[in-house]
């Protein structure tokens, strides 16, 4: 029997869909971890990226943070923080935020930095303040890249939030870690399938967001030239 069939059987059996170990409960926990980590990363990386992009400085910082964040082993960081904080239940948060920041920061910075200087010069010539230039010109023009950063970040975090199970918490990672430990490969395959579906759903959500948010005038341009 293929892994698809094993995963499908597990997914479709009724007992997986209720109780404290059921898929709905695990899914909600997983989305909580993902949402909180993304929210905090956004609060940190979005203003930082906008400011550095607008002021056209700090490129070195952005590159350093991006490389630093990518180089850090998430699981190692998780265990390190868990041990250093004597088992704080929020140990999962730091590694996920560290993972989520670089894509947002880089793309927001690059998005704002890449706005055509003719546009911002024209805006300033019309008498806009710096704040208005950022809000009315740079952010709208940078929207496709900002969304791209968020999307990459969200998909990485939703896939990596499985590590919360490593320190005894819930989420969809429980199925993978418990299943591996107990030689229950249908649970591993089923749990992994749910996570893959979730990542695909997030991809779809961002495609939709892009359709809704990116200004009409930009869409044609981004489709042809970017």
């Amino acid at each position, binding site marked *: 029997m293929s892994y698809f069939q094993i995963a499908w059987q597990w997914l479709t059996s009724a007992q997986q869909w209720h109780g404290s170990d059921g898929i709905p409960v695990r899914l909600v926990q997983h989305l909580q971890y993902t949402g909180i980590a993304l929210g905090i990363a956004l609060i940190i990386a979005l203003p930082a990226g906008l400011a550095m992009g607008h002021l056209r400085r700090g490129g070195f910082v952005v590159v350093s943070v991006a490389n630093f964040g990518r180089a850090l082993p998430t699981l190692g960081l998780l*265990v390190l923080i868990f041990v250093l904080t004597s088992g704080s239940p929020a140990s999962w948060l730091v590694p996920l935020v560290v993972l989520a920041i670089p894509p947002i920061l880089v793309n927001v910075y690059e998005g704002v930095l890449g706005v055509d200087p003719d546009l911002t010069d024209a805006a300033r010539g019309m008498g806009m303040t710096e704040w208005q230039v950022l809000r009315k010109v740079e952010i709208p023009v940078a929207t496709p890249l900002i969304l791209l950063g968020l999307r990459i970040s969200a998909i990485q975090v939703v896939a990596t939030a499985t590590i919360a199970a490593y320190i*005894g918490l819930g989420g969809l990672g429980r199925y993978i870690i*418990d299943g591996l430990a107990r030689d229950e490969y249908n649970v591993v395959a089923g749990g992994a399938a749910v996570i893959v579906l979730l990542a695909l759903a997030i991809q779809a959500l961002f495609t939709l967001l892009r359709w809704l948010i990116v200004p009409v005038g930009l869409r044609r341009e981004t489709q042809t030239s970017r």
Partner: protein
Amino acid sequence: MPNNSSRCAAAPAPAPAPAPAPAPARTTIRTAAVAVAALACLTAAACSSSSSSSKSSSSSNPLVPSATGSVIVGSANFPEDELIAQIYVDALQGKGIKVTSKFNIGAREVYYPEIEKGAITIIPDYNGALLTTSVNPNSTATSTAAVNAELTAKLPPALEILNSAPAQDKDSITVTQATATKYHLTSISDLAPVAKDLVIGGPSEFQTRADGVPGLKKIYGLTFKSFQPLDESGPITITDLASGKVQAADVFTTTPQIITDHFVSLADPKNDFAAQNVTPLVYKKGVNSTTVSTLNAVSAVLTTDALLEMDKALIIDHASYTQVASGFLTQEGLK
């Protein structure tokens, strides 16, 4: 049954194996003499390998992969096993036996075939894990006596186990000193009145495997408040037990943090967890009576507490293998 190779999560990189002692120059003549003796021995069916008593006849023998007077001590790839192997090496050298070290070979799946064909002569093993990994995966033996009896009966003819040490590196229900004092706990049986208020932690599979949560219920009648999945006696388990997130946890009996974090491993009088006594596994033809008696003398004094202290010195205090091994033998008057 946990694989012993994964037992020490916080283990440092193993130290390089000490160089073997240089061979004496007179070997050739003695080898020839022994070759003749061995040939005679092979033709006499009653001549047992371990019966060669006089030292002069126990030199290197080209007909047998590892001759009676020179042995090859191997070890698995985790610090505790390497340490015990170093103790064997040290003790055997003290008796004038030529020893070659072949440490850090791998997991049991790797070293067992090696000793079966005599490529190594002696390896410190754990009787319960040896039985269920390499000899009889379906064994239900749990006590030291039962495990050893089954091993003696079922090991391949080329191999035998020597006397088991009292020292065990096995699963245990471990609590903090504070919890033990509060509820007067010394054995798992003492948990009966309080288990319902305690959260127990362990690796994920502990919830389902026979000697885990189901075994504690079946053998000791314990039902805990809940089960918390942690890791295999590693940093997550230690941290959560110390912080009180779980009040009892599956911790291996020679985990050094038992000393540093003041934990108490509860006794297991009904043998829920199979015995894991440190036991020398030997290639029969490669050992003589001096070797056997030397290893048995080491086993006689190697207790769980002694092993725990040595693991702590090794892993927490970063002492060297040779230093710890030599210190132990001196302390026990074996050196």
